[in-house]
């Protein structure tokens, strides 16, 4: 399998891997007997907002985690801005799924944001006024300034999600990777998050989002990556987000009526 991945990696070299904020080649991940992600190539376009979509259990989150080294892939190469991942960690901000942590952890909102500054602070560096000011500024951008001293367990789901986004903003990265940021949040939070993500794009940053709501894909994103264990389609929304690719990714799980609706919405 390693050999196969290498061969595939070479054959797609020409697609601007050197310039891509995140390029994945021949990625295969398995949690047991069955692969969760199989031989996937992905080339994220710089300065764009990309949605990773696919049915439940299609390997969307796993692809992201493997790309970041959170889970170990069986095979595959990852380059970030044309360099090995480990050299580029400072340029990446990752927002995990909200449900992946215990929100009863004894810490305040401001402390979570300061975690985003830990690369600058180092092992024993002291938190100074300028770090606090920067953290407050990030909280302000997600409309959570007045919650700085709250214990994180006292927040609603939407507020928790915004805190996670603010921590990513504190990292001041060039590539933002978010895992299901809109899952189980209120409408106000969804609006606040998408506004922040669009401002990041305007500032020239690259944003990749694992997304589950097909109805908002065309509104929010310019690129899509469809996956169902294997890659199904990749490209601009107009090219890759079509009735055929959706049918291929979701199979029988997506009602024909839904596909019609999406097709009509897309014109």
């Amino acid at each position, binding site marked *: 399998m390693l050999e196969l991945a290498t061969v595939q990696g070479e054959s797609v070299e020409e697609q601007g891997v050197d310039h891509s904020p995140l390029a994945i080649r021949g990625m295969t991940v398995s949690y047991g007997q069955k692969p969760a992600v199989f031989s996937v190539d992905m080339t994220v376009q710089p300065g764009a907002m990309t949605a990773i979509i696919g049915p439940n259990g299609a390997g969307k989150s796993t692809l992201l985690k493997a790309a*970041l080294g959170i889970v170990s892939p069986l095979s595959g190469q990852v380059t970030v801005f044309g360099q090995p991942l480990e050299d580029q960690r400072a340029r990446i901000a990752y927002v*995990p799924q909200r*449900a992946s942590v215990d929100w009863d*952890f004894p810490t305040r909102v401001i402390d979570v944001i300061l975690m985003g500054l830990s690369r600058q602070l180092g092992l*024993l560096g002291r938190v100074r006024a300028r770090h606090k000011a920067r953290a407050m500024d990030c909280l302000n951008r997600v409309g959570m300034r007045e919650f700085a001293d709250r214990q994180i367990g006292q927040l609603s789901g939407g507020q928790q999600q915004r805190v996670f986004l603010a921590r990513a903003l504190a990292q001041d990265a060039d590539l933002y990777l978010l895992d299901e940021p809109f899952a189980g*949040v209120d409408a106000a939070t969804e609006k606040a998050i998408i506004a922040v993500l669009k401002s990041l794009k305007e500032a020239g940053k690259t944003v990749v989002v694992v997304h589950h709501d097909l109805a908002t894909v065309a509104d929010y994103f310019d690129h899509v990556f469809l996956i169902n264990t294997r890659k199904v389609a990749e490209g601009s929304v107009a090219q890759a987000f079509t009735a055929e690719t959706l049918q291929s990714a979701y199979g029988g799980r997506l009602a024909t009526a839904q596909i019609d609706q999406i097709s009509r919405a897309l014109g």
Partner: protein
Amino acid sequence: MSGEEFVPLSLTPLLIGTFAAIACALPGNFLVLRKQALIGDAISHVVLPGIVVAFLLTGAISTWPMMLGAAGAAVVAVVMIEAIRRLGQIEPGAAMGVVFTTMFAGGVLLLEQTDTSTVHLDVEHALYGNLESLIWLDATGWQSLLDVQALAGLPPELPRIALTMVGVILFTWLFWRPLKISTFDEGFARTIGIRTGVLGMALVITAAIAAVAAFDAVGSIIVIAMFICPPAAARMMTNRLETQIAWSVIFATVSAVFGYVLAGYGPLWLGGEDAVSAAGMIATISGLMLALTAVFGPCRTRSGAPSHA
């Protein structure tokens, strides 16, 4: 009580009990938050095969080989627990259960099969330790603390547990930030370059060393209690990890001092004749403090239900 009586008879057991309690409570804070608190229980079981193997290799009951054997077994156990947890993708409690029952059973078999039956490996000693017997007979009063000759007669458990406590404090201070971040959010910690696997292993190995050093001096009851009770009680007092650590040290110290004094004098005050086990009393006090904070602590309710989105 005068210094002449206090220093030789009570000072060293008090210090040893307190240092052991703090050395276990500090890593206990992270273990409780990581839902790995039972590691103390696991370690106190797996030291049996370690001690038996050390005895078989050296053929004598002496402290250093046995402590090395115990520490070796503890490290083997925590590495196996971590490996089973990650490879099998099961919850930490199950991985610990599998490893420590198997190793404990192996230790029992080994003990039975070999010619150790003539040797007195004391179960009671293993449970309660012998805190009361760790006295400093060379001391004549407070001035002995400056007397080099008297200091040479200190029970060897004292410098050993003091050194262990200093090591645990240094580890916690140096790796405070990565420990906190990776305990809260392991995935995020990975992405900012923290080697979470290595750090998690270092934490349990630190806990194992603290457990073995404390186990030797004060027995397994205190070890198991101190990994869980002071940190859990401290969690009920505050919503900040920094403050929780401070509270856990206070609770550990109060349990050790109050428990020791109460074990020695409590029965007399109640009209009884003999003192009770200091280790048992220290563990009981820590459990009572946990119960009190669970009822009256200001931060005892779990507010973190993430479902009310």
